[in-house]
């Protein structure tokens, strides 16, 4: 009897062999676009996203569960909307900072990718405000909500719970923005180092126990580390210490630590393994970035599970069909015998993707993905 997607994913997490390579695409962007443009293929019309996934013979990525809610004390968050922009003003006794986000249809989707238009730290004096905000942030467990979510996902997948990002990368991406963050590190070194220390201390004291004590088994923490934006020397100094400690805690509780790897990791393969990550999720490969599946498998072996391997660009109409076939056959060669691997699209089946190719991957999984996977 065939295993369920849940059983396959759990087998991979436990470093056991499932019946075949798990195959979980991420369809929400494609599905939402078809609903919006009215171009849903006839066979999927009137069906929910999970029914479509089932029909395509893929699973539920199950990324919508949560184990805590963020709460602030001693400050006020005022939300202000104006055409095209959403502003959140954090008003504290030591000053205020603002986060602004774009709301236009065209770029609105990028909000989900965490791309603020206005970053809260723009001047030296903003650091003390964010320190205050960090010190007054609390994480209230909502474990029952997670349990209900896991039950609802059922056999279609296994929940991966997003729990945030390390202080350094959060600083780069959300608090200052990549460009200016590197300048700030030079211009405000003391404020920067102090903020990193405060954020890490707060998270260790308040967030980590909530994660460690939760019923969730697969924790997603950390996003978009990139060879260029978080190069090896910065990764080792500011990211490795945080995750070495967090991964050790999670491992002691029987949990696995994943990070969202939708970036070029070519120069970070060793650092990711050393930091204690168990999984690179949405792992993106050439030709979308420079790192290849072969390089990652060689560097990580069974230690770091790869979830991904299908860069979304190969699903585009502009990518030739014969090269798509060749790429996919190469995947099965690269992953043989199939351990520590979950096939997925990195990071999404895009609105412009050819859905026929998603179905073709399902055929290939059935044809070549049975364990042990043999090189062909």
């Amino acid at each position, binding site marked *: 009897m065939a295993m369920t997607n849940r059983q396959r994913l759990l087998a991979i997490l436990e470093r056991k062999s499932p019946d075949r390579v798990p195959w979980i695409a991420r369809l929400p962007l494609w599905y939402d676009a078809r609903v919006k443009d009215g171009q849903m293929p006839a066979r999927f019309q009137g069906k929910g996203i999970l029914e479509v996934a089932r029909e395509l013979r893929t699973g539920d990525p199950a990324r919508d569960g949560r184990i805590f809610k963020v709460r602030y004390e001693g400050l006020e968050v005022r939300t202000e909307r104006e055409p095209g922009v959403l502003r959140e003003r954090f008003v504290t006794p030591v000053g205020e900072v603002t986060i602004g986000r774009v709301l236009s249809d065209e*770029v609105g989707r*990028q909000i989900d990718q965490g791309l603020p238009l206005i970053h809260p730290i723009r001047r030296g004096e903003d650091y003390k405000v964010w320190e205050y905000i960090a010190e007054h942030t609390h994480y209230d467990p909502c474990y029952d909500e997670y349990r209900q979510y896991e039950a609802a996902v059922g056999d279609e997948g296994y929940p991966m719970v997003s729990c945030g990002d390390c202080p350094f990368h959060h600083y780069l991406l959300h608090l200052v923005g990549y460009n200016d963050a590197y300048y700030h590190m030079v211009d405000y070194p003391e404020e920067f180092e102090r903020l990193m220390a405060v954020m890490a201390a707060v998270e260790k004291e308040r967030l980590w126990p909530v994660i460690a004590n939760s019923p969730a088994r697969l924790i997603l923490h950390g996003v978009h580390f990139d060879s260029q934006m978080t*190069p090896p020397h910065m990764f080792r100094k500011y990211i490795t210490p945080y995750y070495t400690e967090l991964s050790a805690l999670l491992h002691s509780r029987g949990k696995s630590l994943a990070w969202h790897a939708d970036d070029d990791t070519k120069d970070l393969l060793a650092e990711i393994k050393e930091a204690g990550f168990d999984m690179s999720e949405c792992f993106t490969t050439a030709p979308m*970035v420079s790192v290849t599946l072969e390089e990652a498998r060689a560097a990580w072996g069974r230690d770091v599970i790869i979830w991904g391997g299908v860069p979304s660009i190969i699903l585009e109409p502009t990518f030739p069909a014969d090269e798509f076939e060749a790429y996919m056959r190469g995947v099965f060669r690269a992953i043989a015998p199939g351990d520590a691997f979950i096939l997925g699209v990195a990071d999404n089946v895009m609105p412009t993707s050819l859905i026929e190719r998603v179905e073709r991957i399902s055929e290939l999984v059935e044809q070549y993905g049975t364990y042990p996977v043999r090189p062909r």
Partner: protein
Amino acid sequence: MTDYAALKQAVIDGKVAQVKQLTQAAIDEGRPAQEVLDQGLIPAMDTVGEKFSCHEFYIPEMLIAARAMQGGLGLLKPLLAAAGGKPRGKVVIGTVRGDLHDIGKNLVGMMLQGGGFEVIDLGADVKPEKFVEAVKTSSPDFVMMSALLTTTMLAMKETVEQLKSAGLRGKVRVAVGGAPVTQRFCEEIGADFYSANATGAVTKAKELLHV
């Protein structure tokens, strides 16, 4: 006596104040602005590009060096203009419609300036018609477009087509870059060249203009 080695090293190290001070000292000594640019700032950015190519430098170091270079360039620009100096070439640059990611575009712009090019930066979320208008009004040697998303890279094709429709395609070279962009895509949409990174874009632009 102007110490170009020190100026070059200050740029490479990203020391803005020192670059400004050494550039001003060179100006005060009566050194021609073009000489300060050619013997101090441009060789520094060439070295930064080389260090990037061999993975000694990454984007943070490039950004910090480029900012330092711009500190010196800001002092030289009025003098270069007054002396009638001409840039090596002119580039209109932007992140395409629907895309807000601008780090790659900014870096290419700064590296081009460090390479002696004049850069007209249209910003992010730039519509095809805005590129066309900039080509009409500025007569650049290049239009360089950046995209980070597979959904937005298609706007590059539309821009190339609008340049054709406006009768401008033969007057400007088009370059494309960004994570999902490939040499194949570049060829398919009829762009002139693709570069995987900022230093490659500058090198290619110099090659094409023989500068």
